[in-house]
């Protein structure tokens, strides 16, 4: 792979991902496991957009996912909009939430993460609140099984995965992305070079929220019956972070590889013995931070392979 034609290589990467997930159901028949794998690919990639290119780690990333899931489901229940339209609006509402939470970007690294986590807890408490159960279903969740469509929702999620990956390629190879990475390295110098720091960060933040919101919508559609915990659990943020870190943030294919490998591993080992797996995940995070902070793709990069 050469960096002379990054757009072509990125295009090839997109095509490989598309073929992989289109062919997978005919090889492996558990479509719902494949769907959840795609969900985490989308989330890891969406988180990578923000963390990999701006350095902000959104610990409450699941907040956008849940918002997308609830917006989509409520629209399906109360309007006549086609389901795909509902998913798109779910993404748009997540972007709106990101705009409202935009001032959080004023905070430094870890404080941003904590405040973002608190914001996602607020969203969870609003959607699952007993007092609002006539509107949101409260703690009893929602049911949209009349539009259940495993094939079409699978395709929708694949499109979201491709969109997220294309956005990552855009941030990695475009002029705008170059500016964003300059801001990440040294905001003051970047601002003096004429880059609009606040605008750039806000745009990436909204990209990232859009991916999570869309993924949440498609996830709710595929699941069709869910409790608020299922779409707001901290575990979703955690998986997205670990998958992205494991693969390698700041690259186009790193998070995709990380999510596919670790999610397959989780489905292979984790479901039967979740407690050991939680322990292994914790240990994996510790070891990654100490010894491999740039993920598995950095092993290739060290050998001189140019990774997309």
């Amino acid at each position, binding site marked *: 792979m050469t960096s002379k034609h990054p757009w072509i290589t990125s295009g090839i990467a997109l095509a490989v991902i598309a073929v992989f997930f289109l062919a997978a159901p005919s090889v492996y028949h558990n479509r719902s496991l494949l769907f959840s794998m795609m969900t985490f690919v989308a989330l890891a990639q969406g988180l990578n957009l923000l963390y990999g290119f701006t*350095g902000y*780690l959104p610990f409450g990333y699941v907040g956008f996912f849940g918002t997308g899931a609830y917006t989509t489901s409520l629209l399906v229940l109360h309007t006549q909009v086609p389901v795909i339209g509902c998913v798109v609006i779910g993404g748009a509402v997540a972007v709106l939430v990101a705009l409202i939470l935009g*001032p*959080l970007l*004023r*905070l*430094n*690294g*870890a*404080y941003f*993460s*904590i*405040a973002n*986590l*608190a*914001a996602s*807890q*607020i969203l969870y*408490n*609003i959607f699952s*609140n*007993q*007092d609002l159960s006539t509107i949101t279903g409260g703690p009893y969740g929602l049911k949209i099984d009349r539009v259940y469509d495993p094939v079409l929702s699978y395709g929708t999620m694949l499109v979201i995965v491709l969109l997220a990956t294309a956005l990552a390629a855009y941030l990695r190879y475009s002029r705008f992305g170059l500016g964003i990475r300059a*801001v990440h390295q040294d*905001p*003051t110098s*970047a*601002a003096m070079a004429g880059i609009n*720091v606040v605008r750039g960060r806000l745009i990436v933040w909204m990209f990232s929220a859009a991916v999570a919101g869309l993924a949440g919508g498609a996830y709710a559609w595929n699941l069709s019956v869910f409790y608020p915990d299922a779409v707001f659990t*901290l575990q979703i943020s*955690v998986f997205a*972070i670990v998958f992205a*870190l494991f693969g390698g943030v700041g690259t186009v294919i790193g998070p995709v590889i990380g999510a596919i490998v670790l999610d397959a591993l989780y489905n292979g080992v984790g479901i039967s013995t979740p*407690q*050991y797996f*939680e*322990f292994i*995940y*914790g*240990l*994996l*995070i*510790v070891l*990654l*931070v*100490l010894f491999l*902070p740039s993920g598995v793709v950095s092993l290739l990069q060290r050998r001189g392979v140019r990774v997309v």
Partner: protein
Amino acid sequence: MSLVEYALVGGILYGVFFALVGIGLNLIFGVMRIINLAHGQFVLLGGYGAFVLVRDLHLNPLWGIPLAVLGAIVVAVPLYAVVPRLQKSSDPEMLSFILFFGVAQMIDAILSATFGADQRTLPEDALGAGSLTVFGQSFPDSWWVATAASLLAIAGLYFYFTRTRLGFATRAIMANRDEALATGIDVQRVSAINFVIGIMLAGIAGVFVPYLLGSISPDIGHELTTTSFAVIIIGSLGNPLGTIIGGLVFGVGTLLMQTFLPSWSNLVPYALLVLIVLVRPSGLLGRSVRTA
């Protein structure tokens, strides 16, 4: 009117206790500039320590305090090994945040493998069976004991900061790490001691958590961590004694909500946290705000 008084008195007791819950996190951040995201899990370890003492040895749960002190030394001394490595990295705050999240996951896994996911309680009457009445509002003895223990621990910390050589060295590092190093303070040794003290305070707080929250279970660790963050951010990051103010605001706020709008009371710490960082990021967060 009596409802308001109930919320105020209870809020002060609750808040002083939560100042103790948060203070260790703030001490570690103030001295080492690293984020211990496993803080809530260390609080839980203290609580489970007391639970084991009561269940297996039939001791008073207060014996959990010396156990927490001992346990903190055993656990935190080896764990400190990762800190200098983190401090040398490109982004210590962010990387420590992720690393300690991993530690938290491991403690969660160990706790649920050992104790199961059930909610565990401590005997109601172990800290006194009665209740003490102030301003016509009565609260169980255990709340008063927890508050008294918190005040003692915080007073001890104040004494440590203002009267001991180690405390002076600690404050010097908090004020300016490089200058402290230049004046000949053994920064790594002092940091290690404060790391242990921070985790010790978390464990001591944990002994009382089953009384103040009703029970403990492995899944409340992250909630305790976020609440601690809310308390120390409302107070003053990096200044452990400012935590008391944060605790009081959080405590009174939570009990007022529990009294008047119970279903929304879980929101209080999160809403306070977001509100404060949004409205006054520079005022209450000090140096944590980006310049660009």
